[in-house]
């Protein structure tokens, strides 16, 4: 069309249609979340009770997913393990984006020296390999799970800052910002009342994607024996502990592995969909 089509654009808002894949993904995440909240209350057996005399057994009517080397019920451990699988990534995603939003807004809007300083820091962080730094820091400092979470928060902040900054730069030259400036509205208000709501969809989409990355990273650290304390039911840790009984009770290995993949993929799908739907 020629001149911008005034008055006819966006008059009809399409009703929100959620694809079936996204519904399934959301269902899986809800299931994992319920397990994380209720934990031992819905687990069929205690996740900690050891039956050394029983040892590892394949799935049976008593233990649906069988038992591990110490005779602990695998299904209960997987249900209980949802807690560490969710809490850490949630903290990482929320924490990283809280910091990144602040830095990105300031960096993108103010520009100049502040922007350069923040961006050089981001560049430096980009040069660090995430898993390696996490392994070194957690290994040297110790402190287990929460140290790992903290390290990931710091490492994830860098790319997220860049995302927020570029979103801010997109809004910055728009006339509504200029109009607010000519009205003499304060910088803080422009940043948080005008710009932030407009870039919120992008942030939300990336928070979800961050969650999936954090989940895989934390599981990886647990597998390496860093992070979670031995004995605590955790999906990554279970991969490590049960790798020796792969042939006597494969479910003890495949179930937590499957859960990691399912949760991460579900979160990724939801994040991608949110991005396509709202942030573009």
């Amino acid at each position, binding site marked *: *069309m*020629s*001149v*911008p*089509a*005034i*008055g*006819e654009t*966006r*008059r009809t808002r399409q009703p929100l249609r959620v694809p079936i894949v996204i519904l399934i993904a959301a269902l899986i995440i809800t299931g994992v979340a319920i397990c994380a909240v209720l934990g031992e209350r819905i687990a069929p057996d205690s996740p900690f009770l050891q039956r050394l005399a029983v040892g590892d057994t394949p799935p049976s009517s008593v233990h649906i997913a069988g038992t591990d080397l110490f005779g602990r019920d695998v299904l209960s451990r997987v249900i209980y393990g949802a807690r560490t699988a969710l809490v850490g990534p949630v903290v990482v995603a929320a924490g990283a984006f809280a910091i990144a939003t602040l830095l990105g807004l300031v960096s993108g809007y103010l520009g100049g020296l502040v922007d350069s300083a923040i961006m050089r820091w981001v560049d430096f962080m980009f040069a660090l390999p995430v898993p390696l730094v996490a392994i070194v820091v957690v290994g040297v400092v110790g402190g287990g799970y929460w140290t790992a979470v903290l390290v990931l928060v710091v490492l994830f902040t860098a790319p997220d800052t860049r995302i927020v900054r570029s979103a801010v730069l997109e809004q910055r030259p*728009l*006339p*509504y910002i*200029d*109009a*607010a*400036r*000519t*009205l*003499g*509205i304060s910088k803080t208000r422009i940043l948080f*009342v*005008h710009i932030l*709501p*407009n870039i919120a969809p992008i942030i939300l989409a990336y928070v979800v994607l961050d969650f999936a990355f954090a989940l895989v990273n934390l599981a990886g650290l647990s597998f390496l024996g860093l992070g979670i304390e031995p004995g605590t039911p955790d999906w990554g840790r279970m991969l490590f502990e049960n790798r020796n009984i792969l042939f006597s009770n494969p479910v003890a290995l495949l179930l937590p592995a499957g859960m990691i993949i399912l949760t991460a993929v579900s979160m990724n799908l939801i994040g991608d969909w949110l991005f396509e739907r709202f942030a573009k």
Partner: protein
Amino acid sequence: MNAVVGRAGQEGPLLKVEGLAISDGAVPITTPLNIVVERGETIAIVGESGSGKSLTARAIAGILPPGINATGAVTLDGVPLMRLAESELRKIRGSRMSMLMQDPFTMLNPLMRSGDHIDEMLRDRPEFASRFARADEVKRRLAEVGIVDEDVARRMPFQLSGGMCQRVALAAALARDPELLIADEPSTALDVTTQAEIIKLLRRVQRERHMSLILITHNLRLAFSICQRVYVLYAGSMLEVGDAAAVERQPFHPYTLGLLLSEPPVDIRVPRLVAIRGSVPRAADVLDSCGFADRCDWAKQICRTGKPPLTALDASRFTACIRQDEIQGELDALRTAALSAAPMTPRRGETAGALVRVHGLVKTFVGERGRPICAIKDVSLHIMPGESVGLVGESGSGKTTLGRCLVGLETPTAGDIHVNGIAAADFDAMAKADRVRVRRTIQMIFQDPFSTLNPRHSVGQALGEALGASAGATSPATAERIASLLAKVGLSAAYATRRPASLSGGERQRVAIARALAVKPAILVCDEPVSALDLSVQAQVLNLFRHLQVEHELSYLFITHDLAVVRQITERIYVLYLGEIVEEGPTERVIGNPQHPYTRRLVASIPRSAIQRAP
């Protein structure tokens, strides 16, 4: 043009479009349309945005976007185009019928040299089998569209200006000597002076080749100035068809009259533009009534009981107004009244006590590899209280930068700006109290109505914030104060809860004006405030500006490229060219008797005034 011989010479019109109806799935975009183009004739399809004019052009050429389909019959020289297979159609496109699009930059392949675009079209011809023959022909073709610099053929599209690109595109479209050229807003994306050149070129080429031309445009002046017949399209229906001269002299449909009257005339300043209220409806919403009924002053029940057909009044005139015979007298009277309206007399200005005074302003940007780009070079101007001043120039003249410097969005490199006696060149260096006072004196209206409002804030929130920012919060932004602000710009209080996405362009621009008025400014800097609006809406907003000027004793700095708009709203103008003021003076004098060559070119580039006096 030897190739044309042998095809032409048949009887009947070149192009016949019968019952062409376009729809988007089940949603109709146009009602069945009939269009006839004789050999060697130039017709215009005139319509505002959303009227379906571009899609009609695409339907004729058979290049509708996916999902949009058309029914009916398009016959080119006896060949039914709509029934042809794509492979057959491709042989016709380009060789018998070509298209010229609006945006010259996206129409050319960015990775192909400009000469190759023409070369590509010539390849099929046996006489241009050799590379050298083609190179010679490319040179000849470029010369035909006024490009004599041989180097142009070797340049990439991005190295050419918009006007040059459009010339190359025209040469490519003409390379196979089509009998019919469809030009879809060929000049809209260009600067005013370039626009005039391209139109002149199009007209010359059409005459020389005795080619048929369909010009798709929203610009009535343009249509009347170069076309023999005019089709007026509105919300997907043809409202009036006829001889260009006859339609211009005596329009038969209220919409055509409204369009003629709402287009600001260049030659005189009318006391009040006649605006058509409301905005263009969608075709699907007006299936069973006259599309214009809701905006028409003469609409009766009968207009809403069915779609009025296009009926012939004489051999060459058609109108879709069923009440035409009853209301023609009134239409003619309105037209005469507009023609005889007394021009407004500008006040003769003094310069002491200026509200805004700019002296020796320079703004330099840092360009590629630190190279300085001079946007404004030594500009001085002043604006008196209550005075409306125009700043005219093409894109790249620095007019927007100047406006942004005035409101503190840019800091000038050198020079002084005094607003109400306060030095306001560098907003960061000013005392806070001064800054607040300047902000309350000068406000800005932006060009793009779609991004001038925060999409996440309701109208009420936006105005409330502006009210809070203004008075130093002496009184809270109550619902009544928001309602009274909305009333000032002609909107009802109910708009406070609406979001920008649900408003039309004109409504958004009104809200933006209300927001600027919240701080009770003395002067508004308006950067092309109506250029993105439909013609009929543009007149409404211009009237609002005038009305507000009287009511609030506002001053304006009206930044625009449109001399007709400037004529209607300003008393004095400055002409800005490449960052320098080349001419200034009372609007009437500068437009009536331009001195500087650039101003003369600018004035000459307007096709002609919409108001043509009856012979």
